[in-house]
């Protein structure tokens, strides 16, 4: 594997909360265009890894390189600008804002935020707005043509499946290199999860360069969409490989099912 193919490489990433080691010396590599599944029992450190990587928590130790850049000291804002976008386990949308507004929040790095542009050059603003509106609509249409016709409705009025779709659109609008999905199926039925995974696969077809790390408990999902998987337990990586390798690994079975 040549190093230029590697998008994200983590070495010894550690996060301690007082005496608790939530992430213990995690090494991980993600290649361009790869979908990595992140498995592990509750509290094994999966979401903590996302939070450390995206700058919400500091690294206690270790470092991460993303597209050749050391991001271990980056703020949340800088991580986003470098090209990592994420969704949240408990969907964090602005429920009172419209679908379009929510997606535009994700496009922050491409927006002109000058006072002069926004307050006084309204003609230029209107043209910019039209263009961004179309762009957002195109993206939403990939997920659901129905949603694309409801761009100015408040997100609070949509069911969970659509909120998840909108949240993923918010993450994708800035054209990130790496997408972090934190349990996208949480709170959804089996059927809805199935639909959402279909959406994610079609996004991947549209943008083959995009890498994805996905945290998920639904095993059928993992089997269907991941290229390879990593399993965490008590903050340590206990296994890595293809889905089949991982589920047949005795350590993994033990972590999930206990010792017989």
């Amino acid at each position, binding site marked *: 594997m040549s190093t230029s193919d590697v998008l994200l490489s983590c070495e010894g990433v550690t996060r301690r909360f007082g005496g608790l080691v939530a992430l213990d010396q995690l090494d991980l590599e993600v290649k361009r265009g790869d979908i990595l599944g992140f498995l592990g029992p509750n509290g094994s450190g999966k979401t903590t890894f996302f939070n450390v990587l995206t700058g919400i928590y500091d690294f206690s130790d270790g470092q991460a390189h993303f597209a050749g850049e050391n991001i271990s000291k980056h703020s949340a804002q800088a991580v986003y600008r470098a090209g990592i976008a*994420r969704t949240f386990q408990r969907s*964090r949308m*602005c429920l009172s804002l419209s679908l379009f*507004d929510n997606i535009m929040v994700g496009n922050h790095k491409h927006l002109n935020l000058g006072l002069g542009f926004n307050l006084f050059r309204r003609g230029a603003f209107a043209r910019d707005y039209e263009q961004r509106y179309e762009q957002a609509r195109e993206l939403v249409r990939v997920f659901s043509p129905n949603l694309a016709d409801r761009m100015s409705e408040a997100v609070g009025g949509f069911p969970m499946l659509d909120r998840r779709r909108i949240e993923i659109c918010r993450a994708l609008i800035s054209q990130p290199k790496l997408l972090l999905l934190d349990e996208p199926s949480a709170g959804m039925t089996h059927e809805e999860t199935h639909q959402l995974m279909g959406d994610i696969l079609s996004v991947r077809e549209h943008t083959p360069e995009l890498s994805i790390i996905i945290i998920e408990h639904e095993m059928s999902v993992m089997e269907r969409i991941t290229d390879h998987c990593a399993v965490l337990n008590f903050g340590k990586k206990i296994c890595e490989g293809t889905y089949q390798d991982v589920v047949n690994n005795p350590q993994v079975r033990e972590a999930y099912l206990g010792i017989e």
Partner: protein
Amino acid sequence: MQPNLISRIPVLCRLSESALSLVAGLLGALLTTGFAIWFLKAENEYVIGFLVALAVAVTLSVSRLGGLDHVGRAFKEHEKLMNGAAVCGVLALAAVFREDHFTLLMISIVLLYMLAGLGLTIQFGYLGLVNLSGASFLGVGAYTSAVLLAHTAVPPLLVLVSGGVMSALVGCLLVLPVLRTKGHYSAVVTIAFAILFMSFLQVNDTLGGPQGLATGEMALFGWGFNTGVELENGFYASFYLNYLLLALTLLVIAFALVKRLERSWIGLSMDAVRLDETAAACYGLSIARWKVVGFTLGNFLIGMAGALYAMMLGFIAPANFSFGDSLILVSIVLLGGIGNPWGLAVAAAIVVILPEKLQMIQEYRFLLFAGLVVLVLLFRPDGLLPRGMRTYIPGGGARS
């Protein structure tokens, strides 16, 4: 609910929906102006009480018939015309009461409170920063203008701007501790500032101490505002008319700018910061930047309102800028509809004019407003005129 009873009236059904709304909107503006004239002219407390009851009854029944939806739609689809109608309404009031000092003063105070309310709308409505020292920032602007007019030759129009700038600068210092906290801690910081500012004024002899100090007048192009207009044909206008017109001009400009702010990527960013700081940070929004920008812009407007307020009153004292006044300002924003500039107009009129006209409630006014705010929060939690969805391009640009 029968939302569209009005559109079933025979003559009106031939009009298109949009034109119908415009008619309803303009009619509403006309009726409101007429009512305001009647109300301001009334002297007898019983008549005033009757008028208040009438206003409540008419508003409720029109709302039942779907009339208010039409008015709302008129403001959305024919924004320029409706804005113009509102300004004309104020001008009509000014023309009718041109000789009446007290009424003009009252209307001007409503306009200035609205201007300050716009500042709070940016801070509280968009950014979610509670500012419980609105009156103190009004005071910073007021004292700045008093000192500058007394001791320097700065032209009064620049004094107005300086009042705003000074207030914005003080706000910049105050926002620093706020940036280190999350949630509603800005309330605590601003309460502390309100108390600090009050004590500072009380003990400061150069600024007149508790007695306060006299301020100079506004002047434009060498024309002093403190003289009324008297023409040979018997036309007379109170000097307060000058201040009313200037306050209205400032308000219109500020109103347009705040509306544009809301309908821009800046307004969107401020909303995102208010609703979820963590998610906003993960999408590259600098929380500190937007808080500083919003707090500063808001205080600039409040300070400018304060500077003109001082010139108009001619005399200011610490008692004008008490914590109670800050609460009045916040209650205007809450009552009107957080984040909706039009709500300010309704709420400021109620909060400022009602106690002046109904002297018997003067002592109980805090009680009354507290009750009113609680009632509104219970039954209309988003205020009398809640903020609608953002439309970036008013009129045609918005698609549904």
